[in-house]
């Protein structure tokens, strides 16, 4: 009885919270935009002004964010690689409910991550959140088909080299405009009309690169945790 009351209360509270968010959504109101924001959108070609700022006007900051993430991944791997591999530990069997639901959820989560990275310049999202969502999808994939299978399908150590190479590629993309006579950290590819998918190709490119970097970095952290601490 107490359990039923608790469950009902939790469901009612969740629905109320969802209602609050949905009915008070500021985007639904269609807020007014000042001249500055319109100007920024036309300059960079991205209607999501957050992306326009952190991959356009303030690309310098984002470079260091990528660096911070890379250092974090290196740190986790440095300390976990010292620990012995826990391949001997008996794996905890997954429940069938978890396995079945993970199998349904992981393609959806991966696609959501891809969408967030690809459309980061048009709608809320971006490379960082897209990469993290896709990493959650990979984790669900691990739960449904097992960690070693996923590791093999991602070609194991090859993907680690890609992870180290990606920050270099991002730096090169940021520096390359110098060759075309434009200032450093400016848009590499031509800016199109704001609101189009290819309206700001360089922000799209950077979002995809950062998303890939975050996805592989998070996967490597998760794999190190699983491998050397025996979780999952």
């Amino acid at each position, binding site marked *: 009885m107490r359990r039923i009351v608790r469950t009902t209360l939790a469901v009612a509270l969740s629905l109320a919270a969802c209602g609050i968010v949905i009915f008070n*959504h*500021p985007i639904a109101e269609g807020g007014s935009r000042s001249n500055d924001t319109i100007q920024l959108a036309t300059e960079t070609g991205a209607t*999501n002004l957050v992306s326009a700022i952190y991959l356009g006007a303030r690309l310098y900051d984002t470079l260091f964010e990528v660096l911070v993430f890379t250092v974090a991944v290196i740190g986790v791997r440095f300390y976990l690689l010292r620990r012995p591999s826990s391949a001997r530990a008996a794996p905890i069997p997954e429940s069938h409910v978890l396995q079945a639901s993970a199998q349904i959820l992981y393609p959806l989560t991966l696609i959501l991550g891809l969408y967030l990275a690809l459309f980061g310049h048009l709608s809320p999202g971006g490379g960082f959140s897209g990469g993290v969502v896709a990493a959650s999808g990979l984790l669900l994939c691990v739960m449904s088909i097992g960690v070693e299978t996923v590791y093999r399908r991602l070609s194991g150590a090859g993907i680690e080299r890609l992870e180290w190479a990606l920050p270099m590629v991002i730096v090169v993309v940021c520096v390359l405009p110098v060759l075309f006579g434009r200032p450093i950290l400016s848009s590499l590819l031509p800016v199109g009309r704001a609101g189009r998918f290819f309206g700001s190709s360089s922000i799209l490119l950077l979002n995809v690169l950062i998303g890939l970097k975050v996805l592989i970095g*998070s996967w490597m952290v998760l794999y190190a945790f699983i491998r050397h601490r*025996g979780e999952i």
Partner: protein
Amino acid sequence: MISRTVLLLLLPVIAAVSLFQRRRLSAVIGMGLFSLVLAATYLLHSSPDVAVTEAAIGAALVTIIYVLAIRRTGRLLVVGDEVPGLLALEGGEFVGLEVDILAGFARRLGLDLSIQIAPLCDVETILLRGDADLGAGGLSAVPAIRLHRSRDHLPTALVRLRPEADDRLPPEESPATDRCEYPGTSPISSRRSSAVNRLKRRSTWRAFSRFRGPTSRHGESTDSPCPGASRSSPPPGGRTCVISSARTSPSSSAAGAWTT
């Protein structure tokens, strides 16, 4: 405006509630809930990008990592053989005296109890391998056990008496305490109860208070009597221990413990 205030007021409440959770899983779920409400708050404050990131990292990825981390350390893994009365599986549920003690112990530590049935001869191996935190189920008969034992806690003894011809009682006179018939046994007769009393005096529980629980890590296990086990692979739950509730006297030939 009101909704923003409500959500903002909800944040410290959820944080406090999840801080005061005794069970680790509840605390982690509370933290995930905190992230979710925080994401909703960001959304209402016109920052959907931050909300997406907060929901993806705080509510999904970090929560999953914490849940994975407490899957091993958040539960008290007990391994033992089935002993009727102490640790037995009845109707899909574990019952018995040791199960009650273990459940209380796990609750005090804020862990989930997980019992695994294994043959008695394998219990020590499993404990030394670090796949379980605690052994249970009348472990007195294990020879040359190299693990910590719990101290004297409650004198108990399970006896199996060999039937003798003149001992047999008529069924209606058999004591009510002996309703369960085990193979190869007969109800304890009144004349044999002195043997039972003698056995009851020989129960041992050692080092129960020395068990530190899952917070103690492998660095402290230098005084452990099982050095090979704790150094090569420290048990994730802490120090390996054996809960020993019933120790019967080996000299009493008429009766043997159930574990033999």
